[in-house]
């Protein structure tokens, strides 16, 4: 980032000081290089964000400051710069570390459970809550008719 920022600063300053006339080849190469570097950094970050740091707890190699993560990130950048696609870079790391290295497992086979289970739990839980709420807020049951007061034996309510 610092390097890219420095290149932008250099390119900007050279443009500001450029005498009237056609843009020099050097300046064009500088802009092209900056754009290329920024694009490569963005692609590196996108891939690195999907790869798990092997020595951390739930961090990507993009977010982890560990040496190994930084070295893996550098390898991602080199492979992308060498012309590999993001999928090929991810496949390389999967071949070395297994699918565990992917922060989000591929949605196929047994992995589908990881995607379907939360949805299933939400649906079943929602249904349960819906049924419970309906029971609690539904119309009160009809009061059962009590015994006929006339049929009850007379109480000694009056003083004798």
């Amino acid at each position, binding site marked *: 980032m610092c390097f890219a920022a420095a290149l932008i600063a250099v390119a900007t300053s050279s443009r500001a000081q450029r005498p009237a006339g056609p843009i020099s080849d050097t300046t064009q190469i500088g802009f092209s290089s900056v754009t290329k570097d920024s694009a490569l950094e963005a692609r590196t970050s996108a891939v690195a964000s999907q790869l798990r740091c092997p020595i951390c707890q739930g961090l990507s190699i993009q977010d982890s400051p560990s040496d*190994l993560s930084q*070295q893996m990130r550098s390898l991602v950048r080199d492979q992308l710069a060498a012309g590999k696609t993001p999928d090929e870079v991810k496949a390389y790391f999967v071949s070395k570390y297994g699918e565990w290295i992917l922060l989000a497992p591929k949605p196929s086979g047994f992995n589908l459970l990881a995607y379907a289970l939360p949805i299933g739990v939400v649906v079943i839980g929602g249904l349960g809550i819906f049924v419970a709420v309906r029971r609690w807020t539904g119309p009160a049951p009809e009061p059962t008719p009590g015994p006929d007061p006339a049929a009850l034996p007379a109480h000694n309510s009056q003083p004798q």
Partner: protein
Amino acid sequence: MNWKRASIAAVCVIPVVGLFIYGMHHDPRDIPSPMPGKPAPAFALEVFAPGQPPLQRPMGDTVRLADLRGDVVVLNFWASWCLSCRDEHVTLSEVAKTYVGKPVHFVGSLYQDTPGNGRDWIAQMGGQSYPSVQDPHARTAIDYGLYGVPETFIISADGRIAHKITGPASAALVSQVVDSLLASTPQPKAAP
């Protein structure tokens, strides 16, 4: 007892208990490696600690896996800051000596460390019988899918990773794997 309610409770509770029991018996740090059985990634690494005769390699020499094809290779990743590496250091050094004259090569690969620290550590530990190489930017370590140190990869004569040992390697395990690989390796015919 309402059987319907009991069944629903069982369906909800049993999977949770099952997961809990599985979690109690499973070490989350024990991640299965896909590397065993695969061709060992090639490497060409520079020697920074030569080892001792007769297993010594010249300082600055390049150890290439391709040059060791046909022999069994024990590749051990270690670091001077790794406490567990102390536990296996003497063991590996001694086991390596028992294979002198046989088609077996022991190679140490320094991980996330400087050659100076590595050499000092070896000296403190009383030496190392086999050579150690440096792995700049951990490229070879990543190529082998390394999680940490110590990890040991035993590579068969046909260039495949036959076994991976995570954590300190024991003499018995290393010898057992190496011996079985030697037994299954076709020996070169003696010259007439």
